[in-house]
Protein backbone atom coordinates (compact mmCIF):
# COMPACT_ATOMS: atom_id res chain seq x y z
CA UNK A 1 0.00 0.00 0.00
CA UNK A 2 1.34 3.37 -1.09
CA UNK A 3 2.19 5.89 1.63
CA UNK A 4 0.96 9.46 1.34
CA UNK A 5 4.52 10.66 0.85
CA UNK A 6 5.03 8.25 -2.08
CA UNK A 7 1.63 9.21 -3.46
CA UNK A 8 2.65 12.90 -3.59
CA UNK A 9 5.69 11.96 -5.71
CA UNK A 10 3.50 10.08 -8.18
CA UNK A 11 0.96 12.92 -8.26
CA UNK A 12 3.73 15.39 -9.07
CA UNK A 13 5.21 13.09 -11.73
CA UNK A 14 1.77 12.62 -13.26
CA UNK A 15 2.04 16.30 -14.26
CA UNK A 16 5.20 15.52 -16.22
CA UNK A 17 4.98 12.00 -17.63
CA UNK A 18 2.46 9.22 -18.23
CA UNK A 19 2.40 6.98 -15.19
CA UNK A 20 2.72 3.24 -15.80
CA UNK A 21 -0.25 0.95 -15.28
CA UNK A 22 1.01 -0.34 -11.92
CA UNK A 23 1.65 3.21 -10.73
CA UNK A 24 -1.81 4.33 -11.79
CA UNK A 25 -3.51 1.42 -10.06
CA UNK A 26 -1.55 2.00 -6.85
CA UNK A 27 -2.30 5.69 -6.90
CA UNK A 28 -6.01 5.24 -7.64
CA UNK A 29 -6.33 2.73 -4.80
CA UNK A 30 -4.63 5.16 -2.46
CA UNK A 31 -6.73 8.13 -3.55
CA UNK A 32 -9.91 6.10 -3.06
CA UNK A 33 -9.27 5.98 0.67
CA UNK A 34 -7.25 9.18 1.29
CA UNK A 35 -9.02 12.54 1.28
CA UNK A 36 -5.80 14.45 2.03
CA UNK A 37 -4.13 13.06 -1.08
CA UNK A 38 -7.25 13.69 -3.19
CA UNK A 39 -6.98 17.32 -2.14
CA UNK A 40 -3.25 17.28 -2.92
CA UNK A 41 -4.02 15.90 -6.38
CA UNK A 42 -6.53 18.66 -7.09
CA UNK A 43 -4.00 21.18 -5.85
CA UNK A 44 -1.39 19.92 -8.35
CA UNK A 45 -3.88 20.57 -11.13
CA UNK A 46 -4.63 23.96 -9.60
CA UNK A 47 -0.93 24.93 -9.58
CA UNK A 48 -0.71 24.20 -13.29
CA UNK A 49 -3.82 26.21 -13.98
CA UNK A 50 -2.55 29.09 -11.85
CA UNK A 51 0.81 29.19 -13.67
CA UNK A 52 -0.92 29.32 -17.06
CA UNK A 53 -3.27 32.02 -15.78
CA UNK A 54 -0.33 33.96 -14.37
CA UNK A 55 1.33 33.99 -17.80
CA UNK A 56 -1.93 35.17 -19.40
CA UNK A 57 -2.22 37.89 -16.79
CA UNK A 58 1.31 39.07 -17.56
CA UNK A 59 0.43 39.28 -21.25
CA UNK A 60 -2.78 41.18 -20.58
CA UNK A 61 -1.17 43.61 -18.16
CA UNK A 62 1.32 44.44 -20.86
CA UNK A 63 -1.50 45.10 -23.25
CA UNK A 64 -3.01 47.45 -20.70
CA UNK A 65 -6.33 45.64 -20.69
CA UNK A 66 -6.52 45.19 -16.97
Amino acid at each position, binding site marked *: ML*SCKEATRLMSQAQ*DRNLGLAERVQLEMHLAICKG*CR*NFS*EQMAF*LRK*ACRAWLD*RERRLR*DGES
Partner: protein
Amino acid sequence: MIAFARMQLRDTALAEDAVQEALAAALDGIDRFSGASAMKTWVFGILRNKIVDGIRQQARSTPASAFAADDEGLDQAFEALFKENAHWHPVARPAAWGDPEETLREKGFWAVFETCLEHLPANTARVFMLREVMELDTDEICAELEISAGNCHVILHRARAALRGCLEQGWFAGEKPC
Protein backbone atom coordinates in the same frame (compact mmCIF):
# COMPACT_ATOMS: atom_id res chain seq x y z
CA MET B 1 7.93 42.72 -18.71
CA ILE B 2 11.11 43.12 -16.70
CA ALA B 3 9.40 41.93 -13.51
CA PHE B 4 8.12 38.89 -15.40
CA ALA B 5 11.56 38.07 -16.80
CA ARG B 6 13.21 38.67 -13.44
CA MET B 7 10.83 36.23 -11.77
CA GLN B 8 11.96 33.48 -14.15
CA LEU B 9 15.65 34.33 -14.35
CA ARG B 10 16.20 35.42 -10.74
CA ASP B 11 18.71 37.94 -12.03
CA THR B 12 17.91 41.61 -12.66
CA ALA B 13 20.72 42.27 -15.16
CA LEU B 14 19.85 39.20 -17.25
CA ALA B 15 16.16 40.08 -17.10
CA GLU B 16 16.83 43.60 -18.38
CA ASP B 17 19.01 42.23 -21.18
CA ALA B 18 16.32 39.75 -22.21
CA VAL B 19 13.63 42.45 -22.38
CA GLN B 20 15.92 44.85 -24.21
CA GLU B 21 16.83 42.22 -26.81
CA ALA B 22 13.18 41.27 -27.28
CA LEU B 23 12.20 44.91 -27.80
CA ALA B 24 15.12 45.53 -30.18
CA ALA B 25 14.11 42.50 -32.25
CA ALA B 26 10.55 43.82 -32.28
CA LEU B 27 11.65 47.24 -33.54
CA ASP B 28 13.65 45.59 -36.33
CA GLY B 29 10.60 43.73 -37.48
CA ILE B 30 8.02 46.45 -36.88
CA ASP B 31 7.11 46.87 -40.57
CA ARG B 32 6.04 43.26 -40.83
CA PHE B 33 3.07 43.67 -38.51
CA SER B 34 -0.26 45.14 -39.40
CA GLY B 35 -1.75 45.21 -35.91
CA ALA B 36 -0.44 46.00 -32.45
CA SER B 37 -1.86 42.76 -31.11
CA ALA B 38 0.04 40.51 -33.52
CA MET B 39 3.19 42.34 -32.65
CA LYS B 40 2.70 42.03 -28.90
CA THR B 41 2.26 38.29 -29.23
CA TRP B 42 5.42 38.20 -31.27
CA VAL B 43 7.42 40.26 -28.75
CA PHE B 44 6.27 37.98 -25.98
CA GLY B 45 7.39 34.98 -28.02
CA ILE B 46 10.84 36.51 -28.43
CA LEU B 47 11.00 37.30 -24.72
CA ARG B 48 10.12 33.70 -23.96
CA ASN B 49 13.07 32.48 -26.06
CA LYS B 50 15.39 35.00 -24.43
CA ILE B 51 14.32 33.81 -20.98
CA VAL B 52 14.92 30.16 -21.87
CA ASP B 53 18.35 31.16 -23.31
CA GLY B 54 19.15 33.04 -20.11
CA ILE B 55 18.22 30.09 -17.91
CA ARG B 56 20.35 27.81 -20.08
CA GLN B 57 23.30 30.20 -19.62
CA GLN B 58 22.81 30.24 -15.87
CA ALA B 59 22.58 26.46 -15.75
CA ARG B 60 26.01 26.13 -17.37
CA SER B 61 27.55 27.85 -14.38
CA THR B 62 25.45 25.98 -11.81
CA PRO B 63 26.93 22.77 -10.41
CA ALA B 64 24.38 20.01 -9.82
CA SER B 65 25.23 20.07 -6.14
CA ALA B 66 23.79 23.60 -5.91
CA PHE B 67 20.29 22.12 -6.12
CA ALA B 68 20.84 19.93 -3.10
CA ALA B 69 22.24 22.75 -0.96
CA ASP B 70 19.53 25.09 -2.20
CA ASP B 71 16.73 22.87 -1.14
CA GLU B 72 17.64 21.21 2.12
CA GLY B 73 15.29 23.52 3.96
CA LEU B 74 12.39 22.73 1.63
CA ASP B 75 12.91 19.00 2.04
CA GLN B 76 12.92 19.31 5.82
CA ALA B 77 9.70 21.29 5.75
CA PHE B 78 8.13 18.66 3.48
CA GLU B 79 9.24 15.74 5.67
CA ALA B 80 7.71 17.48 8.68
CA LEU B 81 4.24 17.13 7.11
CA PHE B 82 4.30 13.37 7.59
CA LYS B 83 4.16 10.96 10.50
CA GLU B 84 6.79 8.24 10.88
CA ASN B 85 4.72 5.88 8.72
CA ALA B 86 4.89 8.44 5.85
CA HIS B 87 1.17 9.28 5.99
CA TRP B 88 -0.03 12.86 6.54
CA HIS B 89 0.29 14.28 9.99
CA PRO B 90 -3.31 15.15 10.97
CA VAL B 91 -2.61 18.90 11.19
CA ALA B 92 -0.71 18.90 7.88
CA ARG B 93 -3.21 16.93 5.79
CA PRO B 94 -4.05 18.99 2.69
CA ALA B 95 -7.48 20.63 2.94
CA ALA B 96 -9.84 21.38 0.05
CA TRP B 97 -9.11 24.71 -1.62
CA GLY B 98 -12.57 25.47 -2.94
CA ASP B 99 -13.44 26.77 -6.38
CA PRO B 100 -10.23 27.33 -8.38
CA GLU B 101 -11.86 29.66 -10.91
CA GLU B 102 -13.03 31.95 -8.14
CA THR B 103 -9.60 32.00 -6.54
CA LEU B 104 -7.91 32.93 -9.83
CA ARG B 105 -10.22 35.93 -10.15
CA GLU B 106 -9.17 37.34 -6.78
CA LYS B 107 -6.58 40.08 -7.05
CA GLY B 108 -5.18 39.36 -3.59
CA PHE B 109 -4.43 35.79 -4.58
CA TRP B 110 -1.95 36.88 -7.23
CA ALA B 111 0.09 38.90 -4.75
CA VAL B 112 0.37 35.79 -2.54
CA PHE B 113 1.13 33.62 -5.57
CA GLU B 114 4.00 35.85 -6.67
CA THR B 115 5.38 36.07 -3.15
CA CYS B 116 5.32 32.28 -2.93
CA LEU B 117 7.13 31.98 -6.29
CA GLU B 118 9.74 34.44 -5.06
CA HIS B 119 10.27 32.37 -1.93
CA LEU B 120 11.30 29.31 -3.94
CA PRO B 121 15.09 28.87 -4.01
CA ALA B 122 16.49 30.22 -7.30
CA ASN B 123 17.57 26.96 -8.96
CA THR B 124 14.38 25.17 -8.02
CA ALA B 125 12.32 28.11 -9.22
CA ARG B 126 14.02 28.14 -12.64
CA VAL B 127 13.24 24.48 -13.25
CA PHE B 128 9.66 24.97 -12.09
CA MET B 129 9.20 28.04 -14.30
CA LEU B 130 10.59 26.26 -17.37
CA ARG B 131 8.08 23.46 -16.81
CA GLU B 132 4.95 25.33 -15.75
CA VAL B 133 5.26 28.81 -17.25
CA MET B 134 7.45 28.25 -20.32
CA GLU B 135 5.76 24.86 -20.79
CA LEU B 136 8.89 22.92 -21.74
CA ASP B 137 8.52 19.18 -21.23
CA THR B 138 10.81 17.46 -18.76
CA ASP B 139 12.99 15.91 -21.51
CA GLU B 140 13.75 19.38 -22.84
CA ILE B 141 14.48 20.68 -19.36
CA CYS B 142 16.83 17.77 -18.63
CA ALA B 143 18.67 18.44 -21.88
CA GLU B 144 18.84 22.22 -21.40
CA LEU B 145 20.02 22.06 -17.81
CA GLU B 146 22.00 18.83 -18.13
CA ILE B 147 20.29 17.13 -15.22
CA SER B 148 18.89 13.58 -15.06
CA ALA B 149 15.17 12.87 -15.46
CA GLY B 150 15.11 11.56 -11.90
CA ASN B 151 16.66 14.74 -10.59
CA CYS B 152 14.22 16.82 -12.62
CA HIS B 153 11.24 14.99 -11.06
CA VAL B 154 12.67 15.48 -7.58
CA ILE B 155 13.15 19.20 -8.15
CA LEU B 156 9.65 19.65 -9.59
CA HIS B 157 8.06 17.70 -6.75
CA ARG B 158 9.95 19.84 -4.26
CA ALA B 159 8.88 23.05 -5.98
CA ARG B 160 5.22 22.01 -6.18
CA ALA B 161 5.12 20.84 -2.57
CA ALA B 162 6.70 24.10 -1.42
CA LEU B 163 4.40 26.26 -3.52
CA ARG B 164 1.38 24.28 -2.36
CA GLY B 165 2.38 24.73 1.28
CA CYS B 166 3.03 28.43 0.83
CA LEU B 167 -0.33 29.05 -0.88
CA GLU B 168 -2.16 27.05 1.77
CA GLN B 169 -0.59 29.10 4.54
CA GLY B 170 -0.59 32.44 2.78
CA TRP B 171 -4.00 32.32 1.13
CA PHE B 172 -6.25 29.34 1.67
CA ALA B 173 -5.85 28.96 5.43
CA GLY B 174 -5.05 32.54 6.32
CA GLU B 175 -7.28 35.52 6.98
CA LYS B 176 -8.27 36.89 3.61
CA PRO B 177 -8.50 40.62 3.11
CA CYS B 178 -12.06 41.66 2.30
